[in-house]
């Protein structure tokens, strides 16, 4: 008898819990006082601060313009600390306690991959704005019903960033500067696992010689022997791919070793404080960024200037994606007049939004990855006095490439 009662209680509890989960998002639009957006990101890191700042900026603008059908938008912050387990906790807190209707943000593909399976459990739509691994959108493609709640308006690393990187090295480094001996120095992280080998393959297919190739552990502290080895191989250009590794020691060792010019992708170097953080030793380093004070669209420069005015720092790469992402979610909710995840998903699958980064942002229907289109990642070089100068592509450049002071062609 006691066992039967326990069983019934367990069933009731499970049903109640299930109802609570399914009702976590998916509120009735007309009964909702406000529209609730949850912003995920590590609050102590510039990339996370960029997510939260850009989300706040977009939410404030939407509210100043009258909200969504008169309803104010509320922003809730979840601190992922850049760790998968903390990311899950932050996401659950946003969904279950703050009762957000949609999620946005996240820096680190590892964190987003940890969060992804919970989206179908809570039936909450999530727009990833700072995670690049193609595994995230491949999951949607492989199991649409389970992963359809996931969208990414950032440029994936494994194909799109990699193709752009190869284009830069071939067109600029090889054809314009005349270098053909390339060193690839990439961190061993999820977002680079397909990127680095594919870059090597593309460069070799283009006739360039990859004289040094290494995927280093993100815990490596001393890069001096690595740069000595690169010099020993006669490399003329270092294509580096770094986000989670210790970028400051890497750049210092590069400068102190007087190694060949280094330019491709260094996420920390996208931060305007990087000059100060390295004591100016990033002089000459090049990294692509996803945003620069250049007319990528007519909205880019006004966004940039307002962001600097509001937050006193240059926007990092996560800002543009997040700012656009909030507006896209708001547009779909407004258009559908609904907070139901199915409506938001169908709205996003058919959107064509003019943002600060792209003139026509949309998503692939099967993978929910960003539609291939006119995406631009300006190559930005650190120059004398800590200036960040766009050197490529030509239509957006704000200055010419200057080799590091020690480098003789």
């Amino acid at each position: 008898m006691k066992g039967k009662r326990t069983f019934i209680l367990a069933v009731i509890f499970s049903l109640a819990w299930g109802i609570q989960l399914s009702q976590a998002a998916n509120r009735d639009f007309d009964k909702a006082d406000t529209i609730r957006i949850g912003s995920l990101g590590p609050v102590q890191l510039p990339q996370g601060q960029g997510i939260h700042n850009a989300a706040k900026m977009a939410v404030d603008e939407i509210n100043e313009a009258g909200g969504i059908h008169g309803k104010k938008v509320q922003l809730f912050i979840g601190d992922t600390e850049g760790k998968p387990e903390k990311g899950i906790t932050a996401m659950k807190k946003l969904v279950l306690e703050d009762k957000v209707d949609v999620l946005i943000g996240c820096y680190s593909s590892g964190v987003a991959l940890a969060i992804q399976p919970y989206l179908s459990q809570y039936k909450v739509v999530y727009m990833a704005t700072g995670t690049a691994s193609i595994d995230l959108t491949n999951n949607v493609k492989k199991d649409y019903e389970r992963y359809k709640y996931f969208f990414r308006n950032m440029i994936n690393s494994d194909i799109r960033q990699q193709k752009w990187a190869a284009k830069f090295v071939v067109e600029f480094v090889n054809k314009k500067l005349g270098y053909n001996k390339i060193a690839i120095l990439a961190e061993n992280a999820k977002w680079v696992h397909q990127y680095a080998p594919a870059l090597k393959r593309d460069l070799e297919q283009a006739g360039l010689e990859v004289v040094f190739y290494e995927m280093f552990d993100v815990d490596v502290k001393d890069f001096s022997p690595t740069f000595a080895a690169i010099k020993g191989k006669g490399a003329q250009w270092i294509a580096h791919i770094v986000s989670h590794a210790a970028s400051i020691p890497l750049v210092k060792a590069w400068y102190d070793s007087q190694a060949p010019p280094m330019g491709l992708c260094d996420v920390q170097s996208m931060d305007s404080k990087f000059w100060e953080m390295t004591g100016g030793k990033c002089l000459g380093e090049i990294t692509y960024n996803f945003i620069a004070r250049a007319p990528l669209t007519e909205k880019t420069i006004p966004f940039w200037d307002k962001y600097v005015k509001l937050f006193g720092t240059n926007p990092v790469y996560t800002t543009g994606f997040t700012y656009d992402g909030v507006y896209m979610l708001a547009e779909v909710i407004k258009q559908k007049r609904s907070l139901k995840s199915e409506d938001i998903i169908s709205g996003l699958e058919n959107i064509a939004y003019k943002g600060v980064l792209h003139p026509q942002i949309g998503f692939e229907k099967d993978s929910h990855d960003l539609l291939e289109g006119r995406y631009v990642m300006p190559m930005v070089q650190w120059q004398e006095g800590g200036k960040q100068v766009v050197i490529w592509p030509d239509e957006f450049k704000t200055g010419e490439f200057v080799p590091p002071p020690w480098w003789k062609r």
Partner: protein
Amino acid sequence: MTTFLDILVLGTLWGSIYALISVGFTLIFGVAGVINLAHGAFYMLGAYLAYTFIGVLELPVILSAAMAIGGTAFVGMVVDRVCIKPMRQNHAYVLLITLALALLFQELMYVFFGPHGKAVQDFLKGEILLGNVRVTYQKVLTMLASWISVGALWAFIKKTKTGKSIDAVAQNVEAAVLMGIQPERVYLMTMGISAALAGTAGMLISPILEAVPGMWAFPLFKAFAVVIIGGLGSVEGAVLAAMLLGYSETAVSRLVSANYPDMVYLVAIILILVLRPRGLMGKRAQ
């Protein structure tokens, strides 16, 4: 030739730093029997104090260096008096309290300086050429200062009366007491010296790497490796093991991959524990 010089220069640099860190670690164990898990935190403190005095307050380098070393020594002595002394004989307690202190220091750095690395300017600008190998003055200074510090410690212990009291307590505390030496004063002084050496290492390396919360774990692991290989409690063994580790790690990093240097010390630890548990220069257990 260039490859050999690369390994020689960078191996000497890292060997010197490892020696500086490990000598203090093994000294406090040899004298007071303390396995100090906060030793890496003193290294971190030295780096952050250097950043504060040089980078933030823009004080002269020599004054900043003296204050960073003195400050770390002072913190080490406070830790000994307040946290370790009450339960010095309880090894489990000492391990736990020093680990907690290391984590506390990490959080304090996180709160005061944020999670990002802080750059410390080179103390000396410029470089010299050894063949084709460029060596910055900062690296030369780091090597020289490390060796001077270790040499000064050796001279202090062997040649001065106060230093000999440390040696005496390390050899036989009861006999030292009978000779009129106060062990608690010796422990306090040794902790100060040990912390100062770690702080010096952190201060010297900060312009080459960065000051960042979490940097305390790396020197602690290296110190453990060095004292196990060199022999727990042996200063000479620590210096020898540190140099061997510096050269072998650099050679692996230069010739094979930057991913494998840590394998070197892990394999070395296992080999030593299996083949010669007392370490290269450790004394056989009675």
